[in-house]
Each structure stands twice: as structure tokens, then as C-alpha cells.
């Protein structure tokens, strides 16, 4: 079984601050990990993914994420945050073996105050 947990339902910070959205996963083998963003009124958009190799991956819109096998985490980071980053962020896991099945976390709503 595979699962993803995003423990923070809401995160609020001021523009210019650093943001870090938490994601932890449970999976018995090496996972493939993704972050997606959903802006208000829009559908999901891909931000970045970790498949293998460097544990820090960079994505679109200035975001990056660090894969930490030791504590089963894949936290999303950006500095500085901009008000336009306000959105809902989803972490997702695909199991190895190419089953194409994504398991999503509950999502974190990020509010960046100008």
C-alpha cells in the first residue's frame, strides 16, 4: 500500500518569506514523487518530480523540493514567496514498477499575504 500525508491543511506567510510545504509518504520501495499546484478556479498543474538521482529537484515557477529517504519526506520550497504563489499544493506518489497510479495527499492551501 502507498500513502501520502500533507500534515498542514493551511499555511499563511508574508510575501518575501521562505515557504516550505511538508509532505511525507509511506511506501515499501523507492517512490517516484511529484508536486502539483492548483490555482483558484483552475485545474492542477505539474511543478516538479523526483525519480532518481539528485535529491534536490528544481521545477517550474522557482520551486524546488528535497527528497529525504531517511525520514520519508519530499518537502516543497521556494524563497522568496510571492503573493501569486497563493494556491493549493498537492504532493503525490507513484509506485515503482510503472503502475502509473498516483496517490495524492490531502493538499495544503498556501496563502501569501502581500
Amino acid at each position, binding site marked *: 500500500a502507498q500513502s501520502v500525508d500533507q500534515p498542514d491543511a493551511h499555511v499563511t506567510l508574508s510575501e518575501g518569506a521562505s515557504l516550505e510545504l511538508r509532505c511525507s509518504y509511506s511506501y515499501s520501495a523507492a517512490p517516484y514523487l511529484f508536486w*502539483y499546484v492548483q490555482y483558484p478556479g*483552475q*485545474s492542477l498543474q*505539474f511543478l516538479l518530480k523526483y525519480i532518481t538521482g539528485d535529491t534536490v529537484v528544481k521545477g517550474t515557477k522557482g520551486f524546488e523540493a528535497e527528497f529525504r529517504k531517511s525520514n520519508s519526506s519530499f518537502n516543497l520550497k521556494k524563497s522568496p514567496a510571492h503573493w501569486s504563489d497563493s494556491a493549493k499544493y*498537492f504532493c503525490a506518489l507513484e509506485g515503482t514498477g*510503472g503502475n*502509473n497510479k*498516483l496517490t*495524492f495527499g*490531502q493538499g495544503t492551501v498556501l496563502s501569501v499575504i502581500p
Partner: protein
Amino acid sequence: GGIITQTPKFLIGQEGQKLTLKCQQNFNHDTMYWYRQDSGKGLRLIYYSITENDLQKGDLSEGYDASREKKSSFSLTVTSAQKNEMAVFLCASSWLFYAEQFFGPGTRLTVL
């Protein structure tokens, strides 16, 4: 680039009614997916299809049927609509394996 189209944008039905949602993609992607997004929650996979005429059940397939008769299209049928199924249904597509998924704009289902 490509696009995913979902029809209709809003779907209203009666409890117990059979309802069909449609999705088209022009990326030429192999794999297509149907997710349900309940208000304030994450996405749950209903069905996915690796290729034409292939169907794989997700975690939430009970009460749904799917059909993939062409590579570019993927339909989802709610077999007997229930009030607790009111949600936004998202279609997505991707290349095979570990690839980013591209999402459509969604169909919002209301059950009266």
C-alpha cells in the same frame, strides 16, 4: 502543446440516474485517468487506462464504469448517481511511467 477537454463543465442529475462524463486529449498520450476531487480534499483515482481498450480500476471504482474506445478519449459513467458523489471530476493524461500528468478543467457534478 496540447489540451484536455472535458464535457460537460457542469452536470446536474437526479439521484439514481446514470450520467456520463467525457474527456478528450490531443497530446497523443498513452495513459488517461479519471479522478474525483471532493471539496477541500485531495484527488482519488477512479479508473485509468494505459492504452486504447484497456481499463484499470483505481481506489474509488465502485459505482463507476469507464470506456476507452479511442486513444484520444476516455469516458466515465456514474452508474447510479448519489448525493454523496457530488464533486469535481478531473480527467488527466500522460505518457507511460513516471511522467507528469496533464489535467483537464473538470466536470462539476451536482445530484438533486
